[in-house]
């Protein structure tokens, strides 16, 4: 992304936030805090003085949608660049201290030439990681869905969210770890000529 574009995005964000702050101040000072204080939406009736808050809210939402669009586009660009790349991306293993999210193992394989066997191993490792995560989530849904293990709906939901988040983290870690293991196991057996 070019610097000018980054500057434009940041300036637009600051402008949206400033506009929202000014509108909120206007609403608090001259409009009885309408659309600032929590209110019953079913009893809402439009007044001309609500316009600043409405406009700034719409602009803020549009800005958020634009950011999400940019994020999705950046992810897709990165994916297509990765498939065209001949070597794995260069990462220092120190970034993944304690093996968090597989960065440690990705770092150990950084700059490796990706031939067809490496890509095959990569696919196998990611599939295995996906399967493991899905199995854990499925089991958690099955057990927690009964509602009898903890007994309290709120705690059950909290436990479920924690399990799903940890499963996703495990998936990211396992994908890189298994790939490293598949590749590393090959190297142990290495023999020249």
């Amino acid at each position, binding site marked *: 992304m070019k610097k000018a574009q980054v500057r434009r995005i940041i300036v637009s964000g600051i402008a949206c936030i400033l506009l929202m702050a000014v509108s909120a101040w206007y609403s608090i000072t001259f409009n009885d805090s309408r659309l600032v204080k929590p209110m019953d939406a079913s009893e809402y009736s439009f007044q001309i003085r609500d316009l600043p808050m409405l406009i700034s809210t719409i602009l803020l939402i549009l800005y958020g949608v634009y950011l999400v669009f940019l994020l999705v586009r950046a992810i897709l660009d990165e994916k297509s660049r990765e498939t065209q790349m001949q070597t794995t991306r260069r990462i220092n293993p120190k970034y993944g201290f304690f093996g968090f999210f597989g960065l440690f193992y990705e770092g150990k394989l950084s700059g490796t030439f990706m031939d*067809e066997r490496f890509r095959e191993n990569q696919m196998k490792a990611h599939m295995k990681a996906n399967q493991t995560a899905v199995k854990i989530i499925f089991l958690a849904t099955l057990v927690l869905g009964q509602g009898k293990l903890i007994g309290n709906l709120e705690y059950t939901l909290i436990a479920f969210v924690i399990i799903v988040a940890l499963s996703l983290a495990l998936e990211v870690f396992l994908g890189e770890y298994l790939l490293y293991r598949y590749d590393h196991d090959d190297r142990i057996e290495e023999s020249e000529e």
Partner: protein
Amino acid sequence: MSDFECRLKMYRQLKNMTQEQLANQVGVRRETIMRLEKAQYNPSLKLAIDISRTVEAPIEEIFIFR
């Protein structure tokens, strides 16, 4: 247990090539050539053809499927 026999090592040595040289010519890592020679990796058709052209031997004589 591999389901094929690979005679790549023999044909490579006939051409006086190292694993590294062959790997560079067909665009894979040396570990892949090593795996192939041990019949522990089933190559894609493209890689099999590239290897066959490089060592100048027919595919069916390099990779023998049982």
